[in-house]
């Protein structure tokens, strides 16, 4: 699979404490790839820091939320005719040295989505208990829906081909987690998990509040079922 042009999209919201280190990591370990930061209405000067670092940035005028920003990233990579996109969190949890492994997986295994998985080989990454419970629930849900278990459905490090991106821009998503995975599988796209190591976030606060920890599993489960319905109806109409 020819993936000549790949872009790294870094969604950020109030990551002034982390963004410089993240950008330096990307320059050092993935400097051969194009990259763009999507600043989701930050109020702590993140946008200024990104510009001071002479990085490409898309400023969103009001905070849209993580999922909508990823959707914007997909629209951007399709408009600029990239062959693949890598989403890379701006909170310092990921290592840029692992990006090439995801892209290689897209090429060699001919999959449409390569997920950087924190749990397929190790359970060392913990995170908040509520988040871990939700992650386990969604991981469990993948087996009956997809016929196989996806261990990390909430990873922020993932690589997608342009074909997968075209499918995803048409759907409705919360955070592009299990609902996106299920949608791609229902429409016949292959998915792989690539073991990665992730750090706890370096500085700042998670975007997931306690209220979000309660709402998120319900909304994501509903969106996942919508993706299943979309896929089944699509197969019926073919």
């Amino acid at each position, binding site marked *: 699979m020819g993936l000549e042009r790949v872009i790294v999209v870094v969604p950020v919201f109030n990551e002034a404490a982390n963004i410089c280190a993240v950008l330096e990591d990307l320059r050092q370990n993935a400097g051969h790839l194009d990259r763009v930061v999507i600043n989701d209405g930050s109020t702590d000067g993140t946008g200024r820091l990104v510009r001071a670092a002479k990085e490409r940035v898309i*400023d969103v*005028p009001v905070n849209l939320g993580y999922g909508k920003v990823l959707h914007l990233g997909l629209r951007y990579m399709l408009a600029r005719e990239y062959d693949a996109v890598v989403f890379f969190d701006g909170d310092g949890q990921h290592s840029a040295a692992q990006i090439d492994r995801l892209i290689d997986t897209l090429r060699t295994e001919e999959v449409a989505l390569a997920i950087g998985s924190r749990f397929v080989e190790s359970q060392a990454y913990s995170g908040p208990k509520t988040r871990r419970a939700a992650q386990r629930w969604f991981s469990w849900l993948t087996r009956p829906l997809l016929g196989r278990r996806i261990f990390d459905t909430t990873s922020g490090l993932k690589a997608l081909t342009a074909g997968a991106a075209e499918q995803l821009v048409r759907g409705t998503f919360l955070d592009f987690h299990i609902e996106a995975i299920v949608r791609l599988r229902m429409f016949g796209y292959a998915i792989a998990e690539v073991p990665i190591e992730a750090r706890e976030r370096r500085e700042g606060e998670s975007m997931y509040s306690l209220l979000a920890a309660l709402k998120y599993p319900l909304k994501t489960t509903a969106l996942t079922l919508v993706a299943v319905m979309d896929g089944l109806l699509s197969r019926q109409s073919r």
Partner: protein
Amino acid sequence: MTTQGIIVIDILGILLLLLVAESMRRRILLIGYGLLWSATLVAVMTAVSVPPFLNAITHAVGALFPVSALTLLGFVFIFLVLIHVSVQLTLLNARQVELIQNLALKAEADEREGSSPDRPAAPRQDRDFADPRGHG
């Protein structure tokens, strides 16, 4: 219903019809919604003022008493209106998100073109505000 009750409801209905008409005139109520509420008011006033009409509705929905029929129809009506409003809100939200995304993409494209060697960069306003906002 007593004659007094019918008169009170009809007067209220007419006042509400005038309110709907004035709202449409001021363009604070879409014509479609204005027609819907007008038709609803006329239907309620007719049902109250013309007993055979109300009895026919009661019989049609299988209720024993007219008040039961009106309650059931009222519930169904309110539910449909709320579903409709929810759908409209969802559509508005989707359009808003698309507009915001288009704005952001256009601003980035303009900035990239502005920084090309052939064109001087336009001065950029810093959009980071001091007041914190919640995550969407």
